[in-house]
């Protein structure tokens, strides 16, 4: 078995002939390829297939999941490092904005922020606020399929994606979907690709639908409660028949403007001025005066701060139950130490940053209430020094046995796209 450094040298040399010097990097102990378009991605993946290299695609690395280039994968005991990291940052491609059709087509390496800047002048936006904020790449957003609070009004990335180009594990270039908002021509491989986390291939280009920028944007913040009171208030408000654009419960130390005494409940309202006034009146009646009200830019900034926090380093856990059953977890949560906690009140997912000092052991007390509530726990980022694979040292993943429930169907579908087994689903434990 050749030493790591030698293998890396060989990989780099082969890649340089394919992509040129600017297409290759060696800033970590793993070789990095930086293809510039779908043809180069195809060539890299075909070469990797021939050579038997394991490949891990990576975008900007701020989305809160993993970042090989930031040391969150390589070196941890029990995790096999990839032989090649495929960076998507040079996949900038086109940026085609059709304001009259409310669509935008762009290379997957471009960031969400870039798109927002490009379409804002026409009074439009991409109504998505994924964890990690506007620094995430479009490809990363599609690969993780992650959605933020705006999803309750506008839907998730999977609901706003019109088409994409996917280069699969065998290097086949698949142009999926199109430019129109309704499209049922064939099986929905666009939705299959969204959230596939690199197991089917690399997304090189995307087409999204856009929305008109709302006339008004307002955030109302109630605070000063304990976790139980905050949850009850938050659920009561979130369940009002209002078209909310965000409904979150926050606890712990969040940066301004998300800070405040005790537990906070944040609601976001977007729409026309009169509609917002009417909604505000209803909320005041239901909950009394809020601690704070943010308008326009300040409102948007609050939610951007929330999104960016998810990309910060440190352990992160996701606990999910049906929204109403969150109540059953509160007694245990109330006793656990954590730096920050956020709960999406209408989706039911708690995101908990336990903090560097809290030990995983304490969190095992959550496992039984989660199981009783029919929910799941997934460590998104582990404690330093903790084992990486599901079932190894550290907090186990629980309640997420998707593979078991589908009888291996997901694995067989992915294998069709990755026959040589070079993409993460094939070689990385627990990736599916």
């Amino acid at each position, binding site marked *: 078995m050749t030493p790591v450094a030698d293998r890396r040298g060989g990989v780099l040399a082969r890649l340089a002939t394919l992509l040129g010097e600017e297409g290759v990097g060696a800033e970590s102990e793993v070789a990095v390829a930086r293809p510039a378009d779908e043809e180069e991605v195809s060539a890299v993946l075909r070469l990797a297939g021939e050579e038997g290299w394991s490949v891990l695609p990576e975008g900007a690395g701020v989305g809160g999941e993993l970042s090989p280039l930031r040391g969150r994968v390589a070196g941890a005991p029990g995790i096999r490092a990839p032989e090649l990291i495929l960076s998507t940052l040079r996949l900038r491609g086109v940026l085609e904005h059709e304001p*009259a059709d409310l669509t935008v087509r762009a290379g997957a390496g471009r960031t969400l922020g870039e798109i927002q800047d490009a379409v804002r002048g026409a009074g439009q936006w991409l109504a998505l606020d994924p964890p990690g904020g506007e620094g995430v790449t479009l490809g990363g957003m599609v690969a993780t399929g992650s959605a933020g609070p705006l999803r309750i009004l506008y839907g998730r990335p999977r609901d706003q994606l019109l088409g994409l180009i996917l280069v699969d594990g065998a290097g086949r270039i*698949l142009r999926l979907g199109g430019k*129109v908002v309704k499209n*049922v021509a*064939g099986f929905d491989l666009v939705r299959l690709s969204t959230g596939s986390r690199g197991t089917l291939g690399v997304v090189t280009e995307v087409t999204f639908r856009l929305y008109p920028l709302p006339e008004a944007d307002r955030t109302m913040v109630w605070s000063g409660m304990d976790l139980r009171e905050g949850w009850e208030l938050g659920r009561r408000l979130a369940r009002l028949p209002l078209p909310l654009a965000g409904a979150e419960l926050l606890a712990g130390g969040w940066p301004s403007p998300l800070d405040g005494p005790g537990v906070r409940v944040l609601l976001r309202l977007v729409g026309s001025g009169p509609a917002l006034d009417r*909604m505000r009146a209803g909320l005041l009646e239901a909950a009394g005066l809020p601690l704070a009200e943010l308008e326009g830019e300040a409102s948007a900034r609050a939610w951007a701060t929330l999104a960016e926090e998810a990309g910060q380093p440190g352990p992160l856990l996701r606990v999910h139950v049906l929204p109403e059953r969150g109540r059953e977890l509160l007694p245990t949560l109330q006793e656990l130490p954590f730096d920050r906690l956020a709960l999406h009140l209408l989706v039911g997912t708690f995101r908990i940053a336990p903090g560097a000092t809290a030990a995983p052991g304490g969190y095992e007390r959550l496992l039984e209430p989660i199981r009783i509530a029919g929910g799941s726990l997934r460590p998104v980022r582990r404690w330093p020094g903790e084992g990486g694979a599901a079932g190894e040292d550290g907090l186990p993943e629980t309640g997420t046995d998707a593979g078991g*429930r589908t009888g291996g*169907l*997901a694995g067989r579908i992915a294998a069709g796209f990755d026959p040589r087994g070079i993409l993460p689903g094939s070689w990385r434990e627990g990736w599916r």
Partner: protein
Amino acid sequence: MKAGDPCAGIPPAPAAGLRSPVPRAAPFPGVDAGDPIQVDPQPMSLDRNLLRRLVSIVGPDAVLTDPDRLLVYESDALTQYRHRPGAVVLPGTTEALSQVVSLLHEEEIPFVARGSGTGLSGGALAVGGSVVIGTARMNRILELDPANRRARVQPGVINMDLTRAALPHGLIYAPDPSSQTACTLGGNVAENSGGPHCLKYGVTNRYVTGLTVVLPDGSVVELGGMARDEGGLDLVGLFVGSEGCFGIAAEIEVALVPEAEAARALLGIFRSMEEASRAVTDIMSRGMLPAALEIVDRETIRAVEASIFAAGYPKDAGAALVVEFDGVDAGLEDEVAAAVECCRRAGASEVRTAATEEERLALWRGRKKAFGTMGRLAPDLLVQDATVPRTRLPEVLEQVGEIGRRYGILVANVFHAGDGNLHPNLLFDRRDPDEVRRVEAASREIMEICIRAGGTITGEHGVGLDKRNYMPLVCSPEVLEAMARVKATFDPRGLSNPGKVLPDGYGPGTGAAA
């Protein structure tokens, strides 16, 4: 009911014939001189032992083989075709459905699921004499969970009935296909159905959160689920819109949304579709997002006004535009006023607004009844479903009109203007073989101009049987192969709804060389 042979009393299966391979299906097969309907030449014969075993699973009342009873199952809403099923089976539970499919899988008998048979792409047609598995008995709402805004239903539940059940809790099921008083949730899942309000609310795939699926080998799997965290491949998103080719949904979990506080509608009357489309563009570019934007053309208006559904649309109008806004009551009036302004600026000869709920429903009537009144204009109808980028609508509509004139075919247009989803209705008489040929040619040309305008072949009706040979116009061979691989993963034997979606040569069940 006699003891002993459970098949006693069931008439023998129809005309003997060997089990036929899946026939090659063209979008509009050549017309037999004596019979204008394309009838499947070799209906399948199922052996008595198989029928006996089916009866032992679902009971004798739930297995149909009498040709008179099979008649209604020979067609869906794509009425040009007739395919006699080998039999019709009507299970009532997930367990029974699983056992039926297991049995058919074991015997290598193809099957096709059927809801209410309202599909417009031939998705429920029993090509090759497949066994039709009807979901009509699986019609219960299993769970209504307003606190979590979710429901769990069997596939045979009618779309409108779910909304009716949710309304007392202030919730609705948002996707509202025009056939919603008849179509089933299972059918909606199969086709990823849309409807006028999907402009604002989105399509079926946005609202299906979990599925219990009976795979083509009879095994039962759970996909997704709102109680499950997101992660892993989106198999729910893949299954929705798979048109019965990946198995049969036995339980469907959906998200419900709060009913909008209020809705306001207006009707713009225009001299031409061009003007109506300009109004639509103006409305959208002002940053408004209506709940619905629907246009009907002169031919459609004439048909409606001559029928019992006459809605008071002026008979000489070139086009009528229905605009609806919904949401928080405050502010809706401003949006309506702005939309009225857009209509006038585009040249509307008249704009009507609704002051009451009755008036709002009256404004919609012309649009809602349009499809049903087409029968006044000609005996037969071919409904297209092409979707183009909205800004290309005016030019595409003009080209559609030109094509209709060139082929001497009357075309009545009804469409979801906000989505660019056209429904040109090509009117003809199937007893006239030349007219049939012209309709096919016109249909193909319309499809081609829509694709050239950056569109797709189907926005909401599905590919089914009707459009499978047009798939290469929008999907490259690599993509068709990828779809075929996914299909083969779900259904290695090609038994689940064969002859649909993918063209010939793409895997099991599509016929001809693979």
